[in-house]
């Protein structure tokens, strides 16, 4: 997973107006199994998430963007692998 991919997650988080904890809470609700500390590490590039974890975070962010009236700006890695 490239650094840009992870940077994009954290930038999207900032744009979505979510703290790392708030993003983790949304991720957890969607079934995520990593801890808040691990998610923070994903965002800062200290740990590399699995594709599934990345996509859960992407989806948590996209649901937030929809709440704010937007679309789904964060791409999913699984779709790319399937295609």
């Amino acid at each position, binding site marked *: 997973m490239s650094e840009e991919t992870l940077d994009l997650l954290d930038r999207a988080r900032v744009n979505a107006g979510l703290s790392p*904890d708030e993003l*983790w*809470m949304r991720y*957890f*609700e*969607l*079934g995520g*199994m*990593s*801890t*808040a*500390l691990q998610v923070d590490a994903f965002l800062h590039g200290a740990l590399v998430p699995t594709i*599934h974890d990345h*996509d859960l975070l992407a*989806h948590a962010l*996209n*649901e937030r963007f*929809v*709440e704010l009236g937007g*679309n*789904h700006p964060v791409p*999913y890695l*699984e*779709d790319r692998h*399937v295609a």
Partner: protein
Amino acid sequence: MVTWPDNGPGGRLTLVVAFLPARVVVAVRGELDSLTAPELGAVLNGLADRGHRSVVLDLAQCDFVDPAGLRVIAESIAHLALSGRTLELRSPSGVVRRLLDLVGSAGLALLDGPEADRAAGLDLQRSVDVGRLAAAATRLGPVTAVAGAPLPGSIDGEAVDASLRLVVALARALVGGADGASVSLRRHDRLATVAASDETVLAMDADQYATGQGPCVDASTLGRRFHTDSLNDETRWPAFAPKAQALGINAIVSSPLVVRDQPVGALNIYSRTADAFTSQDQDLASLFAAEASTVLSGVELSVGSASRSVWFAEALEGRQVIALAQGVLMERDSIDETEAYRALRRFSTQTSRPLRERAEDILASLHRRAAAPPASSEDIHE
């Protein structure tokens, strides 16, 4: 989402509390009188004390308000106003509205309808119904919390409690052969049971703490799973085994709870039947232990304990709904877990609806089909 009392509808007053991004909605169902008003008062005061900016009191399903109920509402308005916050009343019935007019409700914000909350992605009524469906689907039984059992130092006890009880209930319901389950946590080098499904498991845990022996003690200390197929042939715990046998217990599996790489406790599941736990059952037990560990690891966030506790109940319900819907899709379409999740997510993305709502729809359609067979399978297809 939290419902009081938690034994469901049937009492004279039910309160449903939903935490939304900008406010808290308290929905009142039933009668608000001198007997039930103090309960609402306690909830409203609790919310006010915990600093929630805006509280909405939904009276759409409130049938009756007497002077005691009005007083509680008025006091809460005053309480919140002291710190510049508001209590909004939503959808009061004609009678309730006239009563409020009589006592003078100047300054009250009256709202009509839950549109605002729908926009925020939450439908009170439906969330509750799906919760019940999910609960029925997993055969959740009653689980008792153990009063007074202390939790580890910095962990938020109130928040953890509900989550661990849910894990215990799920473990007992879903692990094949399980007759009971408990969670033990260590504090100041002493183990305590913080959630238990029944008195037998409580007694079993106590025997382990007293003898310093048993799978729970070993799993919580050594951080790996301990399992015994039959206590008849067990040689590892000579002081503990006969005591457990006297309780009618034959097989036990204890899986460690791990926080920041340190074992902090164990999820214990017992059976009265020897050889009750297959290797799949043991793996499932470990999964629940991992779930409980995730819960424990995530608690140390700087959020108020009450909202935290409510959030955990809601989040676990959401996870459960999604997992159940995933299972339905896997079975229906012969796909694996990842593909099932992707199908849910794709639908959510295409319709701009939350993934959880899609999962709820799938479970609801299953419920409808079960109620009225033989329906076509169309309604749960994409």
